[in-house]
């Protein structure tokens, strides 16, 4: 009965478990993605197909839809584990809680963030986005959606014990999402008008690094409070 599991092994065990559960529960992957596609496709129908207006609003529409889709899927992050007691077991595991939490957030991002990034360029075509804005769109989504998952996880961890935490969750995390939204849409607009957008990208990257380092501690502490 040897114990001696490395941090990497523990991390991947949890990551694989969450991915396996999601594959058997496919709705979890498709619901946020479907929401994202529906919201974006409704805009040309509602506003009209004038290319000038659509290309003007494209960055904002795509990013707002991505932000809402990511928020929609957040609640599931810890809820199921909380309801069946697996979360307690994770809290009592000899492995560092921050590591386990990071694995769960990564699994969540792979399932909800990554599909959005893959489908976003197609939707951008629908909104007549400027050709030179595509690299900026992908870059901001790649750097920005993990920030959304990490920050959102703090809010979910705080509200997981509440029966109707949905509204509270949005109030808690929307203010934290706003900087990402502003800099991401700013970067895409700059790119569309052929101006350098490295500054905005650097700020989103800084947000990503900052939340990657600090969020796991905040999430872990919030989970301990929530299960108290």
């Amino acid at each position, binding site marked *: 009965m040897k114990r001696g*599991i490395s941090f990497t092994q*523990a991390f991947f*065990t949890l990551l694989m478990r969450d991915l396996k*559960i999601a594959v058997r529960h496919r709705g979890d992957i498709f619901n946020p993605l479907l929401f994202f596609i529906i919201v974006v496709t409704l805009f040309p129908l509602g506003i009209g197909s004038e290319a000038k207006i659509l290309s003007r609003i494209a960055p904002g529409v795509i990013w707002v839809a991505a932000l809402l889709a990511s928020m929609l899927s957040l609640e599931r992050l810890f809820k199921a584990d909380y309801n069946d007691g697996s979360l307690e077991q994770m809290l*009592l595991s000899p492995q560092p809680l921050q590591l386990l939490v990071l694995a769960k957030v990564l699994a969540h991002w792979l399932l909800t963030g990554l599909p959005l990034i893959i489908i976003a360029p197609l939707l951008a075509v629908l909104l007549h986005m400027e050709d030179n804005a595509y690299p900026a769109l992908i870059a901001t989504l790649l750097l920005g959606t993990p920030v959304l998952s990490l920050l959102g996880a703090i809010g979910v961890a705080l509200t997981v014990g509440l029966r109707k935490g949905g509204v509270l969750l949005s109030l808690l995390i929307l203010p934290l999402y706003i900087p990402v939204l502003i800099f991401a849409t700013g970067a895409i607009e700059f790119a569309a008008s052929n101006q350098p957008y490295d500054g905005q990208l650097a700020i989103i990257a800084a947000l990503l690094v900052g939340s990657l380092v600090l969020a796991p501690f905040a999430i872990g502490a919030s989970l301990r409070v929530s299960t108290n």
Partner: protein
Amino acid sequence: MTKPDSETLLSAKNLTCIREERILFDELSFDICSGDIVQIEGPNGAGKTSLLRILAGLSRPYAGDVCYLNDSISRNRDEFNEDLLYLGHLAGVKSELTAEENLYFNLRVSGYNEFDQRDILSKVNLTGFEDALAGHLSAGQHRRTALARLWHTNSRIWILDEPFTAIDKRGVAELEALFIQHADNGGCVIVTTHQDMGIISNERLRKIRLEYRFV
């Protein structure tokens, strides 16, 4: 019946717990040594689960402290977690995963890396159900999936909240035999249950009684 060379594993020091403005227990102190089998008794709502959660370090007491090897569990949480096996009344079993995958995950997260899931599952009579989704198992089999961990652990402190729920008579007897074996090997078992234990004799079993209090 504690052996002379037994060691104090867990001690509660002046624990007070308040839930919904009701004092569940106050100034509760006791020591749990290796070799002890402790049953927490009391009517529904007396605070048995709250006490177990406090002992496991999941909840914080209103006042008082829990010590593992004479040091507060908040200070040496890592060593304590390694020496603790807690099963709450929620089993911690994922209904989307098979019995085998559940056990594999639970043991891996507890830090074990070499084990034979099928062999362990056969000890809880789940042979033939290894590949069944836990959600399709009966309540008792679901519970057994969680309890299987007891057969592969070197943690000394077992804290079990209602482990016999939905378990048949033979299963209860097997669990009791396992408790005695574990206590004889220097471990301790803290358990809540409303069932009478058949095999563990009254001299062997220590009882801590919690009363329902109205203030």
